[in-house]
């Protein structure tokens, strides 16, 4: 870098480029097609929360700033987090250049009344989301009549996707209910976010252990479920699931970087994962969002790679446009 020195001086310009404290990002207009994928699911009558979801989708600005596909609202069960009040979280996301954040709810881990949890999430995104937060409701296929929760996510709340927590809900990927859930999500044109874990398994409360789920059966399911748009969140061993992202066909599998570890990890991961399939995710507020931001700086990434990871891939996914893993990404 131009002004980086042998003693480790930081290239400030490059860092700002990577983290993009996008002061004026909110004022920019939404590009065409950002909300196209929602049109079929936005058929419910919709209350204020529904209108909030639409507003967030329309005002998000994937042509500048970051799209964070992995944040959560509400309370982590085992401790208070510095940014677990939604206004504080949104303010910090914006300060960090995040113009759109796909928000699940920590309530989705343990609550059985997911109808209420998802309604609160939608309402919170509407009231406090400042057109940044987009709700992704939780569905637990081990609960009776979970199909209604999924339907409400799609039709009542006009959510673009759902978030699953198999480790907390007690099922494996070879469970028939999971396969059925994926098919139903495709029918409703919902993105499926699959949280493979939420924290280091070794550091969990001994009374609240959620085992990691073996991702091996996913490959067959992805092949069987045409039209599936799957985002794997919190992948601790991304290379083990990298082959999923390269599968050719009518389904798409994406990864994000929140739990990516090792020096210069993004550039190494991109040797195994198509550029079109890697998104920015922070796992905030459980993780410090600066971790994901700094990873963008730690790896040597081209402008094209930065555009793709920072926003273009997530924007395209949200827009519902299929894009073969071999295709080049859409410039943001």
């Amino acid at each position, binding site marked *: 870098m131009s002004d980086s020195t042998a*003693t*480790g*001086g*930081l290239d400030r310009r490059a860092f700002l480029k990577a983290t993009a404290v996008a002061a004026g990002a909110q004022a920019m207009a939404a590009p065409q097609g950002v909300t196209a994928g929602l049109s079929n699911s936005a058929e419910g009558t919709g209350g204020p929360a529904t209108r909030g979801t639409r507003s967030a989708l329309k005002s998000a600005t994937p042509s500048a700033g970051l799209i964070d596909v992995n944040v959560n609202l509400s309370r982590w069960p085992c401790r208070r987090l510095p*940014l677990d009040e939604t206004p504080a979280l949104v303010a910090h996301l914006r300060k960090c250049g995040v113009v759109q954040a796909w928000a699940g709810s920590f309530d989705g881990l343990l609550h059985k009344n997911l109808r209420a949890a998802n309604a609160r999430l939608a309402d919170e995104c509407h009231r406090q989301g400042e057109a940044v937060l987009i709700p992704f409701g939780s569905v637990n296929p081990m609960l009776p009549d979970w199909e209604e929760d999924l339907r409400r996510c799609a039709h009542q709340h006009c959510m673009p996707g759902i978030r699953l927590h198999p480790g907390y809900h007690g099922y494996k990927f070879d469970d028939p209910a999971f396969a059925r859930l994926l098919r139903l999500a495709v029918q409703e044109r919902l993105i499926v976010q699959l949280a493979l874990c939420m924290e280091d398994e070794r550091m969990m*409360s001994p009374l609240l252990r959620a085992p990691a789920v073996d991702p091996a059966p996913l490959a067959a399911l992805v092949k069987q479920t045409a039209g599936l748009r799957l985002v794997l969140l919190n992948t601790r061993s991304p290379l083990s699931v990298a082959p999923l992202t390269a599968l050719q066909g009518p389904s798409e599998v994406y990864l994000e970087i929140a739990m990516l570890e090792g020096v210069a990890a993004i550039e190494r991961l991109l040797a195994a994962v198509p550029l079109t399939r890697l998104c920015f995710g922070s796992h905030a507020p459980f993780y410090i969002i*600066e971790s994901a931001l700094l*990873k963008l700086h730690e790896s040597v990434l081209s402008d094209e790679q930065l555009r793709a990871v920072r926003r273009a891939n997530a924007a395209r996914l949200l827009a519902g446009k299929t894009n073969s893993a071999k295709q080049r990404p859409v410039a943001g």
Partner: protein
Amino acid sequence: MPPWEIWDNHSHLSGVSGRTPAERMAAMLKIADRMGIQRLCVFMGMDFVYDPSPERLRRENDQVLAAVRAWPERIFGYVYLNPKHRAASLQELDRCVRDGPMVGVKLWVAEHCNSADLDPIVERAAELKAPVLQHTYLKITGNLPGESTPMEMAELAARHPQAALICGHTGADWERGLRAIRPYPNVYADLCGSDPTAGFVEMAVAELGAERLLYGSDAGGRSFASQLAKVLGANIPDAAKKLILAGNLKRLLRPILQQKGISV
């Protein structure tokens, strides 16, 4: 990112490609440069074993010495020892620290750190003004057979109040680890080697004070980014961040660096 000085208290010759220690160090320093890190403390060899023999210790320490010699202005070495091999460890301590360029001691998972086997090593390190960094972890899935906990570190600290001890990873389960070492002012909390969970550094500052915290990365197994973020993203004053990122380690190492004629 503020243009503050950053010294990394915890890194390895792993996670980057290179046939020799110098090649790996060069690769690591390129990445460290991007993150604004000036100096790195390095220990253990190009690959690790849980219970190294004396010969193995010597080989791994030679690899670190090679890295230090290749980058003397950037790299500090900590000598890797195994308390089970007391005589050999004391010899290595003399060879690498007293008579060599290394400035600290690293103990990993060969033996629990509350063992009396550590006493002569810690006493000798204190004489040499070398801090002792002891790996600690608290896993609900079960620690390795010889893997220490912060509670065991507290026992060691109580026996050696004159020694400068660094609680590696603060047990990773930092909410328990910080409590365990809180009563012992000669124990520093090493912040690296765990996930970048929000609230860690805020609690550490509140419970131990910023003066007892050391930034480290545990690179190359961990990223510089995730570990730097713990400090840079914490809701603490800038003055505290400066101490954690470099000031405390400078103060800790200054006596031994002065003995070796290294000015910082």
